[in-house]
């Protein structure tokens, strides 16, 4: 199956900075800082291009993953509601 099928575009797109993209962007930035630390460079002041690139990659991957996760959740919800709709006997509200 495709990573993001066409019907996933019917869902409202997540905001650009959502918890997935922000968190993975932070993880990318942190890995650039760790790379500085392991190579005996000043942690924050060196390799700014590397920090920017890794953070950008993290945001990008995070955004795509969040879109995929929302699509999978919506798909499961749709199947669930379809099942409930087709089996009303099993889902009667309790009376009395």
């Amino acid at each position: 199956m495709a990573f993001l099928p066409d019907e996933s575009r019917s869902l409202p797109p997540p905001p650009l900075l959502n918890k997935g993209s922000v968190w993975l962007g932070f993880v990318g930035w942190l890995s650039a800082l760790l790379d500085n630390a392991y190579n005996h460079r000043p942690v924050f002041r060196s390799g700014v291009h590397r920090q920017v690139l890794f953070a950008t990659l993290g945001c990008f991957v995070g955004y795509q993953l969040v879109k995929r996760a929302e699509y999978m959740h919506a798909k499961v919800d749709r199947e669930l509601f379809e099942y409930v709709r087709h089996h009303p006997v099993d889902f009667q509200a309790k009376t009395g």
Partner: protein
Amino acid sequence: MSRRDGGTGPSQEGCSRSALDGWEMGAFTRSAFVVKKMNNAQPNWLRVGLAFSTSAALWAFLIKQHNEDVMEYERRNKRGHKCTGCS
């Protein structure tokens, strides 16, 4: 990483080296075949330029894709139609 023994042996150096040699001689960069002394004082401007331009391109693509997604969602849902042809 600043290890000089290929990573499989113990971390002690040969008996003729002092423990301070790694710090005095600086860090090394290595691939599987060559070891070069790193020079962090002079930036590799090509790599810096490539990193920044790649980041700019990625952000531009991401923002463009997000705006297209928003427009596509609004297009598909503006009439409130329930057809499955386009979704």
